[in-house]
């Protein structure tokens, strides 16, 4: 029986293998569910969500969760595969956040490697993660001021609000 989990938002990253954008979506999704909003989010496994006929392994649970809860899709390219999947199997998405939009806003950031994120890739992932967290707060009508200084101690550059790409974003 599907359980209703209160005050949770589903996050589904496209995770596309062919482009760096897919890798960035994975990283951002993990940052949100592990560090920024661990108590407010559920990560939905994109391949499981999309796989048909896997009810015994839980794909229907994932789809039901997205039916009953606001779900944010994170897209690595303009194909928007994650949004298409959620709309096909569960209904309208709460929001779609695109790597391409971040890259337009921060033209100085040029992530290059799809295999392992380089420094620019990590910065884009962090900016994306903040954007997702903001959207979660908006959906749940909550505020999290502590994200102002969101940083990952494992990374050399930590302040994603001042990304250093010349975009003049805070």
């Amino acid at each position, binding site marked *: 029986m599907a359980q209703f989990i209160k005050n949770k938002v589903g996050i589904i*990253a*496209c*995770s*596309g*293998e*062919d*482009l760096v954008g*897919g890798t960035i979506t*994975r*990283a951002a*999704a*993990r*940052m949100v569910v592990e560090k920024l909003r661990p108590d407010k989010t559920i*990560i939905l*496994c*994109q*391949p*499981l969500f*999309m*796989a*048909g*006929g*896997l009810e015994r*392994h*839980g*794909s229907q649970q994932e789809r039901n969760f997205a039916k009953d809860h606001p779900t944010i899709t994170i897209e690595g390219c303009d*194909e928007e*595969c*994650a949004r*298409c*999947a959620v709309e096909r199997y569960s209904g309208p998405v709460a929001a779609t956040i695109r790597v391409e939009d971040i890259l337009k806003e921060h033209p100085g950031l040029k992530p290059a490697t*799809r*295999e*392992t*994120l380089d420094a620019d890739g990590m910065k884009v*992932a962090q900016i994306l993660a903040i954007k997702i967290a903001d959207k979660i707060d908006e959906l749940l009508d909550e505020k999290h001021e502590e994200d102002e200084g969101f940083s990952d101690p494992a990374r050399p550059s930590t302040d994603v609000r001042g990304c250093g790409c010349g975009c003049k974003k805070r």
Partner: protein
Amino acid sequence: MVKEIMLAKKVYIFPCSGVGKVFGSIGREASYIVVNELAKDKAKISCLPLVVKGKKALIDDINENHVIVVDGCPSKCSYNDVKSATGKEPDGQFLSTDVVKYNRDLKPESDIIPLGENAKKLSRKLAEKISEKVGEILDSDKKGGA
């Protein structure tokens, strides 16, 4: 009669890329090692979500070539997704959990961004197995075409 020259087929590698646990990432990393290094020019990677979305050009190309799926758990999402979208039984399938099972000394770290050292070593071991399979599939093509 002019004999048609057939272009050599390639092998698509589709890892599941599951994001919840490290095993999906091991499959993803292994697939990159195959297409970038061990079977460069013989194997290629594309986006699994795009296959499921039904991108016709990609599905047609998969059907004209070979395909190996790499899954991170017994749900076998990549296997099921590829089979369902293309109607084709994959030419090879791998489970990243198998490589973990046979290398008990390499306990994979749970981090996926970036992968831990043991997870990277496991990825390479898995990549070697996938690469062998790529070779077998293409050799079989050559024998069949001889």
